[in-house]
């Protein structure tokens, strides 16, 4: 057994070294916190991690959906989201300039370096929860992408334009299903209301800006997430009304995902996702 460091020592650095903490000799200096590159990298991983994690979640349904048409629609949506991930994380890696690529970011990053909102990592639950999660996200995603088309960075604007065409269809579809199931049978109504109540506290995070968001908005690169709120409210209010669902009253928002503080679910999601890359680091696939 190795000798344990003295926990009582005032020299915490020496203690960390003794515990093997210095083994993190990354070789390359990471981007400096607060630098424009780091801000942009963070902003892009927020976009790309949302699409990656949500795409991953819905791909878990593959072959298990309630009807064949839903199997097809879900894998199609997952495919769009994974495709968008390739662009966002690809650009993030380019901005970082440390030799990583989109796959390295997706499959070799630790959970606390992921910047997706908590909503997208929520487990699938029943099909109603999966649909409601999708709807709440799409109602933000579509106007966000629309706004990103005006980014001062042409690369961002280009990715957003392509993604927006796909997501315009996602929101149309998820809104339609929320309406039909909300205003459907007694059971489907109850399930959709329960899903809404349960996911509601996770919907606020995507519209709350932190310091990084504000700097990015100021630079004209990525719009202030709070500016998406009116469009989101309009869609959500209109769809919920038609669906005969009651908009929950609370404004409480769980937060942390964007800053890398995730739920317990995140580790379980990443474990299978990253397993091959982690278990066979020298392999190419």
């Amino acid at each position, binding site marked *: 057994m190795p000798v344990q460091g003295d926990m009582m020592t005032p020299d915490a650095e020496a203690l960390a070294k003794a515990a093997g903490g210095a083994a993190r000799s990354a070789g390359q200096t990471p981007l400096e916190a607060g630098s424009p590159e780091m801000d942009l990298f963070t902003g892009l991983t927020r976009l790309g991690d949302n699409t990656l994690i949500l795409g991953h979640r819905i791909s878990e349904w593959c*072959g298990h959906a309630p009807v*064949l048409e839903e199997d*097809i629609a879900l894998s199609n949506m997952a*495919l769009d989201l994974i495709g968008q991930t390739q662009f966002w994380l690809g650009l993030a890696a380019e901005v970082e300039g440390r030799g990583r690529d*989109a796959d390295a970011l997706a*499959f070799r990053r630790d959970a606390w370096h992921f910047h997706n909102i908590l909503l997208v990592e929520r487990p699938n639950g029943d099909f109603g929860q999966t649909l409601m999660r999708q709807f709440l996200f799409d109602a933000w995603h579509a106007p966000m992408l629309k706004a990103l088309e005006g980014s001062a960075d042409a690369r961002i604007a280009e990715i957003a334009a392509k993604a927006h065409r796909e997501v315009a269809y996602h929101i149309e579809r998820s809104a339609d299903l929320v309406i039909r199931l909300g205003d459907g049978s007694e059971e489907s109504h109850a399930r959709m209301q329960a899903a809404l109540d349960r996911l509601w506290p996770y919907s606020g995070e995507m519209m709350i800006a932190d310091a990084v968001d504000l700097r990015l908005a100021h630079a004209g690169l990525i719009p202030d997430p709070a500016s998406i709120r009116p469009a989101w409210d309009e869609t959500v209010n209109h769809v919920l009304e038609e669906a005969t669902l009651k908009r929950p009253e609370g404004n409480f928002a769980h937060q942390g995902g964007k800053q890398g503080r995730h739920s317990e679910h995140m580790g379980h999601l990443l474990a299978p996702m990253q397993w091959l890359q982690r278990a066979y680091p020298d392999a190419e696939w």
Partner: protein
Amino acid sequence: MYAQMVKSEATNDDPEMLAAFQARIDAGERIEPKEWMPEGYRKTLIRQIGQHAHSEIVGQLPEGNWITRAPTLERKAILLAKVQDEAGHGLYLYCAAETLGVSRDDLTEQLLSGRMKYSSIFNYPTLTWADIGAVGWLVDGAAIMNQVPLQRTSFGPYARAMVRICKEESFHQRQGYDLIRKMAEGTAEQKAMAQDALNRFWYPSLMMFGPSDKESVHSAQSMAWKIKINTNDELRQKFVDQTVPQAQFLGLTVPDEALAWNEDKGGWDFSEPDWNEFYEVLKGNGPCNVERIEARQKAWNDGAWFRDGLMAHAKKRDARRQAAQMAAE
């Protein structure tokens, strides 16, 4: 394809009409849904197309098993697209079967209750990432071998579905081959996974063509009706001849010591698969039969509220529309 051992149904139709029908088939005409057809022809086709459709649906499961573990974004996207295509194939085929007067729900109930089968190949597990390559290369490869001739089958909707499906299947096969090639050319561990995948999928793939012609008593009528175009053994031989050089190119060994080039026939001699295993799998004793059917049953049962909810909404909407119309009059 994916229709193994489809029994031809007996027909007691008027002999003159039967003869006229046979003459149309012999002349290479296509039979369309609204035209007269013998009851046996209709029933055999329902069974064959239904079995094929079910295979596409159940076939999502062994591949879906690896979607969440795909090792790169590109591979994940390719696999998602493939599984999506398979669900689409299921959809076209159910539509083709529906033109014969059977509903998709009815066919689904028959699958879930075990009265209808799906291809035995999907009762084998996918254990490593290389298996996803092997499935594309060998399973889609065997499917294509079977389905290409079916583009000329006598029943119009089935033939047309096959044209669309074959295009996509050959895409899947190339992608599967590309995946396993990457593994075969990779690290020692990857190469071992590739060889192991070939070892496990080789004989089950050969079984996909159904029992030997000597045993296959149901073929004659189906061949006369051009529901079946080639014999099982013809197709199996073609598949082996195509696949052996592909395995050699990868540096992988086909798990058959008797495999030998036969100059006289211009093809490979090879060992028959273990037909006892085949019949056991058909009876429900394959490694994954129970899981596969349970997964489909669960999807169907858990989805009941969803389907009922959509129906309830459609009814409400119709009622509202009618009420609005009445108010307007």
